[in-house]
């Protein structure tokens, strides 16, 4: 192993011996050679997925600790212990063991709080990681399958969180289960039986806690582990995506080697994530179930909030108006369909999640792009995607806020009815407005990029010419600065073949193609294309004289479809005067 001429030390000899032993039996040398210096790109946003992984490991470690002391049983016992408020109270063994775990096991409360905080961070990091992947287009070919794997992981993380939240069998989580029962019952035809399936008979029954325990510590984490393995395998197989920049292409991956850089950075990052969660567990109280009391079907606490990732469902349930939304089909003794539960608790989240899961496939269809993509998009360069994702997030965010409408009402002394009405309206208006505004911002940022590439940086230097004219000197961008702003492809709407062929016969498949073209136009009709060398050359040729504003006129031509307000004076980046762009709107750009 050692290439030095001096005699190897004892440690080195032992390492060499172990390596030889392993390699003779596993051929591990091939894997080490392949992976030890594997290159990964560096960016802070790539850490979001790592937080998810590390908070999951934290969950496994703290979870194993908790299973040693928690008793998943609904057998009723009377509590006797150090917590005086509940002395002698009848409660399930699950709740009693949670109290014992919190008060009598040294480090037990710490592990419980670490486990709960880690769960909140786990779901939050999955969501933010998914946002990063979405807004940078990392889901594009060849990573569509990995997007779906990640999507399933998101769903599983919600299942893990929900099943764990209910285990202590306290009043809050018990009412959460009761809501679940109500939602399940609203499902047509199978609802009542599904409720019996979950609870082993009527709610609450005697089975739900042991069943949730098995789901929570075996079924869901097993699936999550398997899918994380698949997720990471695919990351290694595809090699990580990278942000655009000098030297980075779709054919390479630029960054640092796994050993030693990422062994240190990623390994260290695990300890940082675990450490911060431990700090939270030490200093921030979470889910103090001893204040809520054991589950009893009668009491309920006002102002109770579920864990954050369930708030959107709660908000959705709260916003739906009830009047006239329950129907009986098939006469007076017919079947009951209660849309006031079905729509907010099943249809709305179903639609939100389906849009999320299917988006990569819809975008690929609308783009007509079959190439592999390894260089990420800057969100501004994909205005539709960025706007759509923001709109989806806004819908989610409004539902989350609606889930806290009672707290908003009590904190700000507002009428809960008014707040609910505002959110009902916002749920429809908010995403739409977000879409429009985000898209405008993206287009504006793209124009700013063009502006910068064509005219360079403002230097603050004013030059006076012999003619008496003043202009500000602009410093052109260097090749690296410019590359970031011109590297992306101009994606244009798909062209389709005409409806009829040369003999006037209507061709099959035209309607489908037309739909595809419509969707494609929705995605890419409004766009600002990157500066081409010809445009820059032209801008410089004009700008070399007394001022650089003529180049700007040229730029406006290239923005057809970007709906720049035609005829309106546009500032030209520090030129000596404003030049109104000539209105030449038309389809000429695409005919090029």
């Amino acid at each position, binding site marked *: 192993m050692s290439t030095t001429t001096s005699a190897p030390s004892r440690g080195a000899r032992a390492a060499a011996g172990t390596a030889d032993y392993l390699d003779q039996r596993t051929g591990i040398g091939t894997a080490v050679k392949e992976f030890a210096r594997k290159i990964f790109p560096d960016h802070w946003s790539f850490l979001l997925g790592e937080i998810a992984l590390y908070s999951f490991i934290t969950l496994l470690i703290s979870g194993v600790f908790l299973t040693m002391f928690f008793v998943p049983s609904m057998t009723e016992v009377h509590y006797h212990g150090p917590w005086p408020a509940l002395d002698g109270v009848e409660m399930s063994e699950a709740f009693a063991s949670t109290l014992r775990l919190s*008060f009598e096991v*040294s*480090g037990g*409360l*710490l592990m419980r709080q670490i486990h709960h905080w880690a769960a909140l961070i786990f779901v939050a990091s999955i969501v933010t990681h998914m946002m990063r992947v979405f807004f940078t287009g990392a889901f594009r070919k060849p990573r569509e399958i990995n997007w779906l794997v990640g999507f399933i992981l998101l769903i599983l993380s919600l299942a893990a969180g929900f099943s764990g939240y209910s285990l202590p069998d306290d009043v809050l989580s018990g009412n959460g289960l*009761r*809501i679940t029962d*109500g939602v399940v*019952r609203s499902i047509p035809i199978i*609802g*009542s039986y599904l*409720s019996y*399936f979950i609870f*082993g008979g009527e709610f*609450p029954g005697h089975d739900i806690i042991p069943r949730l325990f098995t789901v929570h510590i075996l079924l869901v984490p097993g699936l999550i582990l398997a899918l994380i393995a698949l997720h990471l395998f695919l990351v290694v197989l595809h090699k990580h995506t990278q942000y655009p920049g000098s*030297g980075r*292409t*779709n054919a390479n991956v630029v*960054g640092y080697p796994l050993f030693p*850089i990422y062994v*240190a*950075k990623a390994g*260290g990052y695990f*300890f*940082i994530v675990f*450490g*911060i969660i431990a700090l939270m*567990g*030490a*200093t921030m109280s979470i889910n103090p179930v001893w204040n809520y009391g054991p589950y009893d*079907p*009668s*009491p*309920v*606490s006002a*102002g109770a909030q579920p864990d954050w990732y369930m708030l959107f469902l*709660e908000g959705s*349930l709260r916003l739906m108006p*009830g009047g006239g939304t*329950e129907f*009986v089909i098939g006469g007076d003794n017919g079947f*009951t369909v*209660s849309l006031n*539960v079905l729509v907010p608790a099943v249809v709305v989240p179903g639609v939100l999640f389906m849009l999320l899961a299917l988006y990569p496939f819809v975008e690929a269809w609308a783009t007509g792009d079959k190439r592999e993509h390894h260089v990420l998009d800057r969100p501004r360069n994909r205005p539709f995607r960025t706007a759509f994702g923001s709109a989806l997030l806004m819908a989610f965010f409004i539902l989350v806020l609606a889930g806290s409408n*009672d707290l908003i009402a009590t904190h700000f002394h507002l009428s809960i009815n008014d707040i609910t009405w505002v959110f009902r309206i916002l749920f429809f208006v908010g995403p739409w407005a977000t879409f429009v505004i985000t898209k405008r911002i993206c287009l504006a940022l793209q124009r700013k990029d063009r502006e910068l590439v064509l005219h360079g940086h403002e230097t603050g230097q004013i*030059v006076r010419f012999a003619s008496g004219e003043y202009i500000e000197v*602009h*410093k*052109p961008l*260097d*090749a690296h*600065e*410019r590359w970031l702003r011109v*590297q992306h492809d101009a994606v244009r709407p798909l062209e389709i073949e005409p409806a009829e062929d040369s003999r006037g016969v209507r061709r099959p498949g035209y309607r489908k193609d037309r739909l595809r073209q419509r969707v494609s136009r929705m995605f890419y009709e409004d766009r600002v294309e990157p500066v*081409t*060398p010809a445009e820059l*050359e032209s801008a*410089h040729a004009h*700008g*070399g004289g007394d001022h650089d504003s003529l180049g700007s006129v040229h730029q406006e031509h290239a923005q057809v479809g970007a709906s720049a307000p035609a005829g309106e004076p546009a500032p030209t980046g520090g030129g000596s005067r404003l030049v109104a762009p000539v209105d030449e709107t038309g389809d000429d750009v695409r005919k090029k």
Partner: protein
Amino acid sequence: MSTPHGHGQDGGHESPDFAGSDLVLREGDATPEKFQNPGFGPHRPRKGDVDPAANKKSERQVVALFAISILGTIGFIAAYFALRPGDTVTSMRNSNLALGLGLAFALLGIGLAAVHWAKTLMNDHEKFEHRHAQRSTDTVRAEAVQALKDGAEDSAIGRRGLLKGALVSSLALFPLTIALPLIGEVGEDWNINKFKRTLWARGKRIVLDPTGQPIRAADITIGSVVHVIPEDLDESEAPLDEKAKAIVLLIRLDPRDIVSEQGEGWSYDGIVAFSKVCTHVGCPVALYEQQTHHLLCPCHQSTFDVADGAKVVFGPASRPLPQLPITVDDEGYLVAQSDFHEPVGPSFWERLR
């Protein structure tokens, strides 16, 4: 690779002329369609790369961070033995805080040390690898197809429809051996009609929850609200299941305020009884507003007017809370006239069947 020019230097030498532009154009040729990737930018040295003192300082910082971790672990062990959770809230809190801080320092020390080491002391020159298309080559694909064909040939399955059918059928059927008992047993008796009945019955005494004390009409003052359950609830087979359906709110109104009831003579001297289970998704409806006679569910804010047959006045519920017909028995205690006349709680498919 072009070099960045003019950047970070004194801008005073710039002229409005762009002759110094680094735009790469091919001589005598048409301008290229797109810009070319300029290749890797220059490497910027870190302070530690050029200044040995800074390098040494980083090393000391890394060592210090590892030392903090060791101290954290020692602190944790000390806290474990010195600060037991004890019997008071304060001692529990102190134990949790000390253990947690020890653990946090033990972990953060290692983490920050490793990352600081990587960022300041390890080689920071970017490297690159080539990517390869995911798709297999045509040759490999052809070989894969051939391998499958050969395997299918060896299996002798071709043109044997019955064999194929038997294979598929047996594979499709065998999961029933696991699914059938699972589905059969997992829902207990599957008798969903239990949703429709509660413990309330003719003459069943109304008692306080949780003490089980029977109630006389005179015990309830106008404007007050009482949480009640059927008598002998604890003696039923599944008390929690029964309680989940049978919880009731007794509210005494001024009889003149009562606008409507769900049945003739269902109230007693201004005392009305409504199911406490919300008709939305089943939360206990627990907040009563005396002035407006409104009952509010704290879960999703469905609001019911108890003076008007518990009709929904706001929120996501669509049906009134079912009313329990009540009266008094010979001894003057409040009793139910019958069970509810409709299923309590959230709607379900077979509710009216």
